[in-house]
């Protein structure tokens, strides 16, 4: 364990990738429930797991505890494990009770966890059985959020991939349509929909949808844009339904957003002049909002611990649009194919790591003493206490950061810890 493996000779110019093994300080896939349950407003997420699962979601969702949650954990106990209780009967009982109490729920996800997978509870079958029992009142689907299978944002990928077979089929003769894939803040979604309409792509649709009854149709004439870099399984599932992925960098920053929109515009044959007219004001606003932060961020060395798989697009944005210098960019997983356009734009100075060992990475971070370290909540205060400024990575998932009108906010998230330090005299 802990050996360092250099993988795949890098393409010329592209930074080499180092893979490590060892302790991975990352969330499991259940964590995505924290934002998915707010996004799909009539969905409920039922984790079949242990007290640890319940405690994790509660701890990760601590800030959102005020809202009535649309998630819960069916906690397995000794009786379930010993086979005294029939797990399927127990699950039926729990689901019936839940749906009875929450008539507003139209879509129920059974979410597999580490223990449910190790003892091989077949939630796919359970979901089918429960769906038959409760349709049309509620549909029941399943996916895995377990830490042994999924790392943090891969939970969203698994959830969306589980939705894909349920999407209605688009007629083979339908006009080409655009589907944007990946949970975005509602406000960002609305902005993108407006821009797409401006450039002449009417009725762009979004997955996940806000309501279970509004599932977007998909078919061979569907072109899709990934709004998030961690959706490999969902992309494959959409492709298996005939949809085609439009390769692009991700919509972070003025440049990223422009290239992302451009990929759609090109696929839909939008004339260059119309595209330019439609995006110019937004792009100018984004650039203007970034100038304010360039002074503070430019030339600063930034170091990424692995978290959401957004690390590479973020490093690209920070390097190219505000002049930061990414020295180490670690990501839990690197989907080369989905990130090809991003990697091409990443400065070669950046060392790339996939799934690093947390202790060894801390050694490198302490040795490098970067100006800013992007890391999870477990590491942030300890690094700050050692005098290393940090940015909590989870905020990058809970804040609207995509698109032109959020580009300045995104830069500000990185500028704020530095600005704070410069104010404090204690």
């Amino acid at each position, binding site marked *: 364990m802990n050996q360092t493996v250099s993988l795949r000779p890098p393409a010329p110019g592209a930074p080499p990738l180092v893979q490590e093994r060892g302790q*991975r300080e990352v969330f499991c896939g259940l964590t995505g429930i924290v934002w998915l349950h707010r996004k799909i407003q009539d969905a409920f997420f039922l984790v079949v797991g242990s*007290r640890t699962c319940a405690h994790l979601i509660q701890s990760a969702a601590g800030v959102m505890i005020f809202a009535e949650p649309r998630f819960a954990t069916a906690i397995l106990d000794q009786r379930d494990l010993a086979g005294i209780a029939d797990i399927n009967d127990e699950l039926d009982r729990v689901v019936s009770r839940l749906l009875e109490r929450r008539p507003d729920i139209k879509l129920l996800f059974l979410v597999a966890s580490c223990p449910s997978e190790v003892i091989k509870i077949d939630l796919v079958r359970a979901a089918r059985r429960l769906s038959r029992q409760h349709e049309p009142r509620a549909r029941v689907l399943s996916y895995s959020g377990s830490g042994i299978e999924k790392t943090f944002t891969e939970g969203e990928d698994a959830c969306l991939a589980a939705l894909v077979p349920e999407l209605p089929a688009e007629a083979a003769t339908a006009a080409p349509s655009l589907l944007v894939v990946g949970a975005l803040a509602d406000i960002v979604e609305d902005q993108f929909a407006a821009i797409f309409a401006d450039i002449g792509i009417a009725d762009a649709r979004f997955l996940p949808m806000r309501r279970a009854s509004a599932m977007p149709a998909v078919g061979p004439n569907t072109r899709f844009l990934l709004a998030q870099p961690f959706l490999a399984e969902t992309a494959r599932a959409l492709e298996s339904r005939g949809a085609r992925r439009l390769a692009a960098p991700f919509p972070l920053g003025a440049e990223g957003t422009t290239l992302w929109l451009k990929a759609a515009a090109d696929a839909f044959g939008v004339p260059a002049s119309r595209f330019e007219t439609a995006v110019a004001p937004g792009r100018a606003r984004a650039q203007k909002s970034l100038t304010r932060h360039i002074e503070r961020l430019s030339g600063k060395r930034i170091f990424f611990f692995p978290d959401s798989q957004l690390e590479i697009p973020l490093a690209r944005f920070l390097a190219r649009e505000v002049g930061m210098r990414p020295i180490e960019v670690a990501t839990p997983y690197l989907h080369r194919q989905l990130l090809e356009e991003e990697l091409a734009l990443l400065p070669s100075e950046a060392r790339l790591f996939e799934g690093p060992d947390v202790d060894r990475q801390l050694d490198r971070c302490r040795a490098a003493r970067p100006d800013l370290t992007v890391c999870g909540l477990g590491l942030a205060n300890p690094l*700050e206490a050692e005098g290393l400024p940090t940015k909590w990575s989870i905020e990058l998932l809970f804040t609207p950061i995509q698109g032109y009108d959020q580009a300045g906010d995104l830069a500000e998230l990185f500028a704020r810890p530095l600005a704070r330090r410069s104010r404090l005299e204690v």
Partner: protein
Amino acid sequence: MQLTLWTYEGPPHIGAIRVATAMNGLHFVLHAPQGDTYADLLFTMIERRAERPPVTYTTFQARDLGSDTAEIFKASAYEAFERFSPRAMIVGASCTAELLQDDPGGLARALDLPIPVIPLELSAYDKKENWGAAETLYRLARGLSGGRRQRPSRPRPLANLLGPTALGFRHRDDTVEISKLLGALGVDIGVTAPLGASPDDLTRLGEADFNIVLYPEIALPTAQYLEKAHGQPYTRTAPIGVGATRDFIAEVRALASLNASAPLQESKIEESRLPWWSRSVDSTYLTAKRVFIFGDATHALAAERIAREEMGFDVVGLGTYSREWAREVRERAKVHDIEALITDDYLEVEEAIAAAQPDLVLGTQMERHIAKRLQLPCAVISSPTHVQDFPARYAPQMGFEGANVIFDAWVHPLMMGLEEHLLGMFREDSEFHEGASASHLGAFSAPQRAPAAQAPPLSALAEKSAPLDPQWSDEASKELRKIPFFVRGKARGNTEKFARERGLTTISLGTLYDAKAHYGR
């Protein structure tokens, strides 16, 4: 299978981490899948700890299940030993790893490390966080405290302080307060554990004359073991509140063979301000305020006594999520002629609070959320905790300073005396209207009815309104609105109950006042 929205306690390995994190020089190697490292953030964020918890997680994944997770455990344990050079190690498994049956204890033994390695059996599927902390401390004491020894005669008696952990509700400050108190009484402290102790310190546990059990949920099994193994008696009173602190002092003096009747002033102990604050006329309005108490057993029982003896409150609800202490809590509830609520189901607690309509909720962070939803004042008295429960200032719950802190913490959420009267007298006044709250609570704390569109709590959906509910007449309903909002819920409930019991189908103005006379204090 139990449907759970929020949990009062984490799994047992979180309790073990709380013990390990409290100590110095102890390392915990936890066999656990990827993702279980979330536990670190509880300590670094909620408690603002400046170091990572001393825990190495094996973070195995599905691809490792086919090969050899046991090898991963051994490699992790060995690397942790090399990297962190701990003085002792504890090893265990979280829920998923428990299913793999890799036997961390046996694997660690096979490594033959030159330090004590103590295996933990954490029973993830039927035990919880506090049990895990108690079990870990007990295993450590058993493994490290050695054999019984002759205690030398000393000028001052020596006591160990047992129970404070990382992430404990005010453990940091309680430890300071009780240490000061013991010093003033003439008792020296041997080992404080686990907070701040090293494995080497634990080898000195047997030297003390007796043990102080601060938090029985965590320290009792250890104290019982030390009594058996080292002949050390231990204290039974948790010194929370004035009365309990006085009892605790008497208990310590008896165990330490000190003069039981020496005045405290001679020991330079400043008694609490609580008794005078409570007797001063301003506090008259606290009389018979109805409080609902829920928390771990130690804090709930302490709050019950303070509410009854030191604040003059009525206890209308008492409960705990610590099932191991159900008997004690039930006994205390009987005194108030109420049924104790022994549950770890948040929905049940919510229902009970809604039904009791208390003037004040004393609970955990969970009850704070319930109270917020029900628009009731609340003070936090127990774990589970939240970042606010780790204040920058010194704020113990134990000892005489703890009683001062408690008095303030419980009284501040309430309406102040005269203000309450003014609201009652001038209820139609534009500034004292029904939405107005106490001035010291700030403009934005004014309670607002939850918009109807918001999802009602699960418990509300579960309730069914009885078909024969009496209907409010316009006149009575108008009068009801004149009653200040903070007692209106109770007035409505009482009046409806009064009407139902008498088989009335309509509530008139007369019914409202008849009910008032019937239930009037």
